[in-house]
């Protein structure tokens, strides 16, 4: 059965495979693609005029869902009716798909003109590094964007041109709204426990959790299966113990910054105290975020630490009992600070044929005129923070959030997210914090692991 008649074709088949493989290998040898786009021929002249004598087509790529996505659609319609010669094509993808494909789409021959580029090293960094985003500084000056929002908010979308650091350098995007982490509470449970909310200081907060625990009520529901939520808690705790500037230095990656700060140790110490006292549920690492949220809405705990992305769910679920406050400060008169940022900003492709129009559109969707639509869609307003504060009806949970958000913005107290500090930080800090709240790692180990990632990313 192993005669040469059977063998020979097999040898030939092998040859074909080898040849094909060799060809493929040759092709692969010059992979991966891409040389820097040559910016030598680029003109730096900008204009704030929208020409009305030519058909202009713009492609906008985004990942905003639900109300946020609808408000973008609505504003695009409005812009198109103001400029009948401008036509938009919207390309929507889920956040996950978007994140996976945006680099390739932006470096393709037919890239979107306007694209959402999340701050920091994961999304915006590689695009800046590849020279795919147009610096918006000249537009910012022409349109006066820096007067529209607090300076710190624009900084989040700034990147050094070589993408080695952010928070400084050219402006590469403009955001529509903000997000912020704080403490949701259940007023009914607080009433039962005889607590008067909101609270003045962090000690009061810890005291309130003890009261709840003693009465057999779970103080905090925490869903840390995905790992992010313990990160939020550590981050807001850290911002109780230090100025936002110090935290931002580390997140923005400035030379000499070190996670081993007194504030980090104090925050971890307090956090550990909560874990040891049983204020944090022991099953937190095995509980999904949405599961913890639905427990809280079902009256399962006094507090729930999360961001405004859960505002609608909490308002609907707890109704009159829903409340929101910032995590109380160390001392009552400390400036309001919170973990939070602007939403993912929109940038303009460097090779966009109509970048003046694209910039004009960005100006429009961040203007006073657009604020109402954005607000209804669920964006926490950044452009008109102070005008909104007056109208705030502080008794409902939306009003409480908006007031707190406006206070933090006014004090430039947004401290961003810890996992923004390097491209891999999310995969470093979330697992190690799971270990920390599972009491499998101590504060030293957390600090060492996190700082090692920070330093590795900076060579």
């Amino acid at each position, binding site marked *: 059965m192993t*005669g*040469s*008649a059977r063998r*020979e*074709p097999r040898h*030939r088949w092998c040859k*074909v495979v080898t040849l*094909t*493989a060799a*060809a*493929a*290998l040759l*092709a*692969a*040898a*010059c*992979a*991966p*693609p*891409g*040389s*820097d786009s040559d910016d030598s021929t680029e003109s730096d002249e900008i204009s704030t005029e929208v020409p009305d004598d030519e058909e202009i087509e713009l492609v906008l790529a985004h990942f905003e869902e639900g109300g946020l996505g609808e408000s973008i659609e609505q504003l695009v319609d409005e812009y198109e009716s103001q400029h009948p010669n401008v036509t938009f094509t919207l390309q929507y993808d889920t956040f996950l798909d978007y*994140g*996976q494909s945006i*680099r*390739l789409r*932006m*470096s393709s021959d037919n890239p979107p003109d306007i694209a959402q580029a999340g701050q920091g090293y*994961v999304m915006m*960094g*590689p*695009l800046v*590094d*590849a*020279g*795919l985003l147009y610096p918006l500084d000249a537009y910012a000056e022409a349109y006066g964007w820096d007067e529209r929002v607090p300076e710190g908010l624009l900084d989040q979308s700034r990147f050094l041109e070589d993408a080695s650091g952010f928070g400084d350098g050219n402006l590469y995007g403009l955001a529509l709204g903000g997000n912020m982490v704080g403490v949701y509470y259940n007023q009914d449970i607080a009433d039962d426990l005889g607590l008067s909310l909101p609270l003045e200081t962090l000690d009061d907060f810890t005291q309130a959790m003890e009261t709840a625990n003693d009465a057999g009520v779970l103080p905090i529901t925490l869903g*840390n*299966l*995905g*790992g992010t939520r313990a990160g939020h808690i550590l981050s807001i705790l850290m911002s109780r113990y230090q100025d936002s500037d110090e935290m931002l230095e580390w997140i923005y990656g400035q030379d000499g910054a070190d996670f081993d700060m007194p504030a980090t140790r104090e925050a971890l110490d307090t956090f550990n105290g909560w874990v040891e006292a049983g204020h944090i549920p*022991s*099953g*937190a*690492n*095995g*509980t*999904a975020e949405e*599961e913890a949220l639905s427990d809280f809405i079902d009256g399962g705990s006094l507090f729930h630490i999360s961001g405004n992305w859960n505002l609608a769910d909490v308002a609907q679920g707890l109704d009159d009992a829903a409340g929101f406050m910032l995590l109380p400060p160390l001392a009552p008169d400390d400036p309001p600070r919170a973990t939070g940022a602007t939403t993912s900003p929109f940038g303009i492709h460097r090779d966009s044929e109509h970048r003046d129009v694209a910039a004009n559109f960005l100006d429009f969707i961040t203007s006073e005129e657009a604020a109402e639509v954005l607000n209804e869609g669920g964006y926490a307003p950044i452009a008109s923070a102070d005008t909104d504060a007056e109208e705030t009806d502080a008794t409902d949970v939306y009003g409480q959030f908006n007031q707190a958000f406006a206070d933090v913005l006014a004090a430039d107290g947004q401290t961003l997210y810890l996992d923004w500090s390097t*491209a*891999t930080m*999310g*995969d470093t800090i*979330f*697992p*190690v914090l*799971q*270990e920390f709240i*599972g009491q*499998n*790692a101590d504060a030293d180990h957390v600090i060492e692991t996190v700082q090692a990632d920070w330093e590795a990313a900076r060579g």
Partner: protein
Amino acid sequence: MTAATDGRRDVRDSVPPGAPAPLPRNRSPRPQFIAYLYMAPAVLLVGGLVLFPVFRVIGFSLYEWSGAGAATWVGLENYASMLRDPVLHRSILNALAFVVTYSFLPIVIGLVVAGIIGRYQLHAIPFFRTVLFLPQVTTVVAVGVAWRWMYSENGTINSLLSLIGIDAGTAWLGDFTWALPAVGLIGTWVMFGFCMILFLAGMAKIDRALYDAARVDGAGAVREFMTVSLPGLRPELTVAVVVTIIGALQTFALVYVTTAGGPGHATVVPGFLVYRMAFRAGDVGGASAVAVALTAVVFLVAIGLARLLREKD
């Protein structure tokens, strides 16, 4: 048209039916050319859709590349840093643990269930067969989400345990000791239906006379299974072992949906690391290196196992 017809006749002429004579080489180059032409669509498809991407990934693995813009040649550096990565070491150990729950347990359970179902010719067998196979055809995401609920602190598993007096009170997927076995057992649940169907099909091919003979010799159910069914199932066993072990080493979706590698790095697997590095950390080169290494290991293991199990024949 004429050329093709000629070619076909030539091929037939050169290999007369029933004549095992060696194929005369290079006597007429035309028939070979025609043969390559026939093969071309398949070669192009496989080459373009399988081989080309594979070699592209090998190419990527030699560069530092974020997925956008210019790439920098780094040679084997991605492989070197891969070997130094403690999380990757952990992921390999986890993948080996998954071999037990993805491969060993499903095969054992599949054999036992197939043995029982195959022996007793019940009317309800199609029903049982379908129900037991269902996990295999359910999408992994649905499976993962459902089990995530069942494993939660107030989930089904803990309710059932408390019925028999065990008050675990653990969120299984968040427990550093139990998360890995918990995710692994979902794999067992998914894979054993596949093994069972495979073995049932194999047992249907075994000559009934062998069972009769065993019974005449006084063999019980277990003996009968060991001496008749098991040896008869060798080809199916080979397929089951190879397929399930490849599945175990390549696990991604189940981990992604249930634990995302946590708590800590307790359930992280190589496939998940590839995803995380490529799409989250923007390290396409490093991710490609892990993918290439993983593919090589899976390839070698599969070939080795197939050889090992075949040689015993």
